[in-house]
């Protein structure tokens, strides 16, 4: 069997092994491949960067644990940026299963890193069912929707929340979402309360959300791990997303390489069909 025939019907396990290796190596030893910044990420960064210190912002983290690899790095980079700019952050989640706890975890970690205090610099409101009621209700009174935060403390006992009765005292919204909640934030909160917002969404969702950016409803967009990696670079804190992007680049090139080799093999051996039975239609 010639090399090209071999390339045409490679054992799937060889492909699997190479993919494993392409993820493991960058996780252990970051390759630090360069990232180029897209305009949507740039405007996301600029929007947050131009907020005056001390501003209060809303930080919805509407994500399921299953997309954590994509969404957590976005949340981490965004919170780092916010805390470094001394913004004060009100977090919440519209995904009951896992959303509030991942948010709590990330907020505490990044707050500690930047010397921020719970209740003064940031709050995690947690989750309440019925997102439409939550999104609209917070426009008149946050306390009616969330009588207490995720830890069970009454809002009146949190200095930050005493300053924030409703959307009027929040100047900006930074959303991280892996589902259609983003549509509700745009169509309810941006449209009715003219709250300016930026969003980080999963890669699969990004093309559809671009229309919100074009319409000016979102002032910036992070698309998946790639967006997160670009943002990490801009914030100056290279972390998991950049490492993930190293793996992404390797695997994308690997798949492209396999496809190309498979095709070259196909054209090289097209004439000796008798020896080749590997494939159907």
């Amino acid at each position, binding site marked *: 069997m010639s090399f090209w025939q071999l390339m045409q019907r490679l054992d799937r*396990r060889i492909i*699997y092994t190479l*993919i*494993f290796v392409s*993820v*493991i190596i960058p*996780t*252990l030893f970051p390759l630090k491949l360069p990232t180029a910044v897209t305009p949507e990420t740039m405007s996301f960064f600029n929007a947050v960067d131009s907020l005056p210190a001390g501003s209060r912002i809303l930080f919805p983290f509407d994500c399921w644990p*299953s*997309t*954590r*690899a*994509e969404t957590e790095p976005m949340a981490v980079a965004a919170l780092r940026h916010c805390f470094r700019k001394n913004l004060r952050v009100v977090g919440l989640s519209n995904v009951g299963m896992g959303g509030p706890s991942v948010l709590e975890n990330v907020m505490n970690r990044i707050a500690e890193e930047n010397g921020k205090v719970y209740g003064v610099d940031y709050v995690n409101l947690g989750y309440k069912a019925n997102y439409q009621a939550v999104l609209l209700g917070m426009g008149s009174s946050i306390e009616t929707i969330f009588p207490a935060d995720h830890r069970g403390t009454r809002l009146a006992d949190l200095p930050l929340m005493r300053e924030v009765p409703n959307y009027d005292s929040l100047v900006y919204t930074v959303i991280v979402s892996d589902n259609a909640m983003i549509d509700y934030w745009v169509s309810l909160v941006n449209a009715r309360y003219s709250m300016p917002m930026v969003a980080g969404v*999963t*890669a*699969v969702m990004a*093309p559809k959300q671009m229309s919100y950016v074009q319409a000016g409803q979102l002032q910036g967009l992070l698309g*998946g*791990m*790639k967006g997160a990696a670009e943002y990490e670079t801009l914030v100056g804190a290279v972390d*998991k997303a950049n490492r*993930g992007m190293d*793996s*992404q680049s390797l*695997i*994308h090139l690997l*798949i492209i390489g396999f496809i190309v080799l498979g095709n070259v093999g196909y054209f090289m051996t097209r004439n000796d069909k008798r020896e080749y039975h590997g494939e159907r239609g």
Partner: protein
Amino acid sequence: MSEFFSSPFVVLFPTAFFTLALYSFLYKDNPMFKFAEHVFAGLSAGYYFGLIHHSVIVQQLWTPLSEGTDWILIVPTVLGVLLFARYVPRIAWMSRLSLAFVIGSTAGIEFIRQLHGLILPQVSKTLMPLDSINNVLIIVGVLATLIYFYFSKPHKGVLGWTASAGIGFIMVAFGAHFGYTVMARVSLLIGRIQFLLIEWLRVAS
């Protein structure tokens, strides 16, 4: 000693074990995968059972019935119980009544939903002026795709030509979607490997 037992290696061991057991399937079927597979199936069926018990049977059926407010719920209960008629040969046909109810109501709901929720709005979105290349392409793409599905004539002549354009458009879309999804799927794998190497084995940070 107790420090060892509270270390992430031990605490996360079950999670890591089952993760690796499932991945072992990629090499070939083996007892470890088989074990994980059956545990997984059993747990998930049990989980679903608990979920339905609380969210449907208790909340939507038992509570309203026991409060005596919603006697009409006896009807779906009977329909549900009728499903078990298939274990009694003489009345086995009765279980089809319940299925006919569900399938019939689905068909009824879907008939209008397809027209109201999908066909009309999607067609409406396509009514754009031919004032840019993108608009022209979208309109041509929608029409060609739609005509590709035309069943009543062989794909020859003008129809054949349009249908080939349709299949061309379809392949562009599918190729793009495939390529675009790679990143999302690899992200999931990165998440699992980061769990194994960073959270469990702590060999990276």
